[in-house]
C-alpha cells in the first residue's frame, strides 16, 4: 500500500452528514434512548416518519425503484450519527432488506417492494439460526416445493425489527442449495414471532419459527443471483454496523472524557492520572483509525478493494467500540457499574455488533486469504 490512498467523499455525503448529525442529536438525546428501552415498539413512529420524509430510506436505492439513486457511501453518513446517538429506528433493518432485494430480487419483486421500502414500509431480514454460525450460505432452515408453493421449516433468530415488518427476506436451503425467500407479514402465523431478550436493549429483535409458513414459489428471490446477493448482504451488514459502531464509539469516548474532566479523586481531576488518560488516548486513536477505515470502505464499497475495506471497517469499529465501552465502565468506577451509567449502553451495543455478520477474528481470517493468498 505504498501507493497514494484517497478517500472519496462526495458533496452529497457532506450535506447528508451535516443534516444527520443535527437530526440524530436533536431527536435522540440519551433520555429518549432510555425511555425507548422501556417502550415495546422500541422507537418513535413520528421520528421514523420524519426520516422517511427526508428520503433516507431510499438514499441507496435506484430512482427507478423510488429511491434517490445515491450509494451506500451516503447511507454511511446517516448511519454513523445515528449510532453516535444510539438512535433506535428500523433504519438498519429496512436498509438491509432493501439492499437484499436489490441484489437478489426478481424484477417483479423489486418493482413491488423497493418503492414501498423507500417510502417507509418496514422490512426485515431473517438469516441467523440457533447454530450461531455466521456463514449466510449454509442455513439449516429448509424450503420444500409443494406444487406452486414453498413450505418452510426451521427457525430463525435475531430478526431485527421483525415484528412490524411487512416483508421479510429469509435464507434457507431449497433442494440442497441456499436460497432467499420473501415472506409477507400476512403469511406468518400468530405466535411465530417471539421477541428476544437482546443484549442491546435499544434493539428489537425476534425469533421466527418457519414451521407452518407456506408461500407461493413466486416469492423465491432470483436463484441465479443468490450467491451474489448473500455476498452483498454480508458487505452491507458489515458496513452499516461499522458506521453504527464508529458513531457509538465516539459517544463513548466523549462520555469518558467528560467524566475525566469533572470527577475528582484524591483532590485531583481523574483525567490527570496517566492510568486513565493514556488508555483514553488509545481509545481516541482506535476511533480515529476506525473512522478512516469506515469512510474508505464507504467510498470504495463497489471498488476492487471494497470487500477488503468493508471487513477492515467492521473489525476496526468493533474493536474501537468494545474497547471504548469496556474502559468507559471501568473508568466510571462505582457509578460505571450501575444501570444508570451510559457506559453499559455502549458496551452492550458492541457485543451485539460483534454477534452480527462475523466478529473480528472471523473477518481477519478472510482478510488474510485476500491479502496473502491472492495469486
Amino acid at each position, binding site marked *: 500500500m505504498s501507493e497514494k490512498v484517497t478517500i472519496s467523499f462526495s458533496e452529497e455525503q457532506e450535506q447528508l452528514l451535516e443534516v444527520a448529525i443535527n437530526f440524530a442529536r436533536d431527536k435522540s438525546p440519551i433520555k429518549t434512548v432510555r425511555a425507548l428501552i422501556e417502550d415495546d415498539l422500541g422507537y418513535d413512529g413520528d421520528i421514523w416518519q420524519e426520516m422517511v420524509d427526508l428520503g433516507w430510506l431510499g438514499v441507496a436505492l435506484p430512482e427507478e425503484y423510488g429511491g434517490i439513486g445515491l450509494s451506500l457511501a451516503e447511507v454511511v453518513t446517516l448511519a454513523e450519527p445515528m449510532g453516535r446517538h444510539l438512535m433506535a429506528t428500523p433504519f438498519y433493518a429496512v436498509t438491509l432488506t432493501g439492499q437484499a432485494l436489490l441484489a437478489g430480487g426478481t424484477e417483479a419483486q423489486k418493482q413491488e417492494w423497493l418503492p414501498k421500502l423507500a417510502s417507509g414500509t418496514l422490512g426485515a431480514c431473517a438469516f441467523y439460526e440457533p447454530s450461531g454460525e455466521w456463514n449466510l450460505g449454509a442455513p439449516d432452515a429448509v424450503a420444500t416445493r409443494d406444487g406452486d408453493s414453498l413450505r418452510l421449516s426451521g427457525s430463525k433468530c435475531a430478526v431485527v425489527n421483525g415484528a412490524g415488518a411487512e416483508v421479510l427476506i429469509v435464507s434457507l436451503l431449497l433442494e440442497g442449495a441456499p436460497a432467499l425467500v420473501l415472506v409477507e407479514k400476512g403469511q406468518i402465523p400468530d405466535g411465530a414471532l417471539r421477541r428476544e431478550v437482546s443484549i442491546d436493549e435499544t434493539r428489537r429483535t425476534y425469533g421466527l419459527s418457519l414451521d407452518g409458513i407456506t408461500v407461493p414459489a413466486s416469492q423465491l428471490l432470483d436463484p441465479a443471483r443468490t450467491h451474489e446477493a448473500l455476498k452483498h448482504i454480508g458487505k452491507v451488514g458489515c458496513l452499516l454496523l461499522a458506521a453504527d459502531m464508529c458513531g457509538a464509539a465516539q459517544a463513548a469516548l466523549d462520555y469518558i472524557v467528560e467524566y475525566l474532566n469533572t470527577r475528582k479523586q*484524591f483532590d485531583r481531576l481523574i483525567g490527570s492520572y496517566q492510568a486513565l488518560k493514556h488508555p483514553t488516548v488509545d481509545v481516541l486513536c482506535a476511533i480515529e483509525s476506525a473512522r478512516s477505515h469506515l469512510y474508505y470502505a464507504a467510498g470504495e464499497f463497489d471498488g476492487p478493494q471494497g470487500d477488503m475495506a468493508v471487513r477492515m471497517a467492521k473489525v476496526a469499529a468493533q474493536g474501537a467500540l468494545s474497547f471504548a465501552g469496556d474502559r468507559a465502565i471501568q473508568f466510571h468506577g462505582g457509578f460505571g457499574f*450501575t444501570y444508570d451509567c451510559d457506559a453499559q449502553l455502549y458496551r452492550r451495543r458492541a457485543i451485539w455488533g460483534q454477534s452480527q455478520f462475523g466478529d473480528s477474528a472471523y473477518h481477519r481470517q478472510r482478510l488474510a486469504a485476500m491479502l496473502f493468498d491472492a495469486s
Partner: protein
Amino acid sequence: MAPTEKELEAFRGEVKAWFEENRPPEPDFLLPQSFMEVGTDEQFYFLRDWQNKVYEAGYLGMAWPEAYGGRGMDQAWQNVVTREMVRQQVPFMVNTIGLNWAGPLILMMGSEEQKKRYIPNILSAEEIWCQGFSEPDHGSDLGNAQLKAERDGDEFVLNGSKIWTSLGRHAKHMILLARSNPEANSKYEGLSFFLAPMDVPGIDVVPIKKMTGEYGFNQTFFTDARIPASTLIGGEGNGWKVAMATLMFERGASGGQAGGHAQMQRESSHLIDLARRSKRGGKPAIEDPLVRDQLVKFVMRERSVRLNSARSAHKALTQDRPHAISISGKYLITELTREMNEYALSLQGTNGAFYVGDPGAVDKGLWHRAYFNAFSATIGGGTSQIQQNIIGERVLGLPKS
C-alpha cells in the same frame, strides 16, 4: 497439630461424599455468582439455608475457636472443604463479609464480648453482615470517608450515606468506617470503625440497579441513626488502621477466614468447555488455532495465580519482594476474570446477541452477566488502576503518583 497428608486425603473423601449427597437441587431461578449479586429474596433465603446446612455439618469455621462456634482445628482441614466446594461448584457461602472480613477482624481485635456476640451467628448465617466503606463521592478514596459519627454519651449518631452495600437489605450488622472527629490532625486520624447494627431507626437501604439489569447493591442512608459506643472496634480514632486490616482480609493478604467459597468461579475450564460446545465454521471452536492459543494464555495466567500461592509457602522463593504475591493477587485475578468472560462472548457467534432470559442465550446468559459483574471486582475494593499504584509503591518502592 497439623494433619498428615493421609488423614487429609481420607477426609477429602468424606467431604466429597457429603457435598455430592447434600448439594441443593438446582432452583428454577438463576442463582447469583457471588454475594454481591443477590437481588431477590428467594435467592437470599436459598443461599442462607445452604450456608446454615454446611455449618451444621461442621464444614465452616473449622479453624475458628470452639468458644465462638468454631471447631478449633488446623486450617488444613477447612481448606480441604473449601477446595471441594469449589471443585463441585456447590452454591457459595452467602455471608461472605462476615466469614471472610468481619469475622477474622473481630477475632483479631474484637473484645471477648464482641467475639461471643457476633462470631457464632456469622457462621450459622443467622446474622448477615454488610460493608460500609465506600461513599457516593469518594469511590476509591477511603481515607476521605465523610459519614459522620458524633459521640453522644454512650452512643454515636450517624449521618451520611454509604454505597455498594451488598446484602444491605438482609444484613443485621455493618462493618462501618465513619468520621468521628472532623477536626483531627489528618483525615486518617479522624476515622473510627464500628460493628454497626442495621436495625436501628434512621437507616434506609435503597437498592441500586446494576448494569446487568439486576439488583444486588444498595445505597444506605443514615439519618440521626444512633448506635451503641460498644460497637466500636479498635478504639476511637483508629478507624483507618482497622480498615486497612480489613482490606488485608478482603484482598486475601491476611489469613484467618472461616472458609467456604465466596463465589461461583468462572474458571478457564468452563471457558474451555464452552469452546468445545461452540461452533466456528461448522467445527468446534476448540479446534480453531486462534481460540486454542488464547485459551492456553488464559490457562497459564490462571495457573500462575495458583502457583504464586504455592510458591508463597517457600520463603526462599519470595525473599526479594516478600509481599509481591499477596498484594498483586487481587489485580491479577480480577482482570483475568473480566477478560475470560469477555472472551467467552466471542465464542458464541450470533448467539452472543442474546441475554439472560432469552431461551437462545448460551448458558442462560451467564457469560454476559459474568462479564458485567466482573467489573465489580476490577472496580470495587480499589480499582485495578489503584491496585497498580499500590503494587508499584509498596512492592517496588516507586514514588507516589
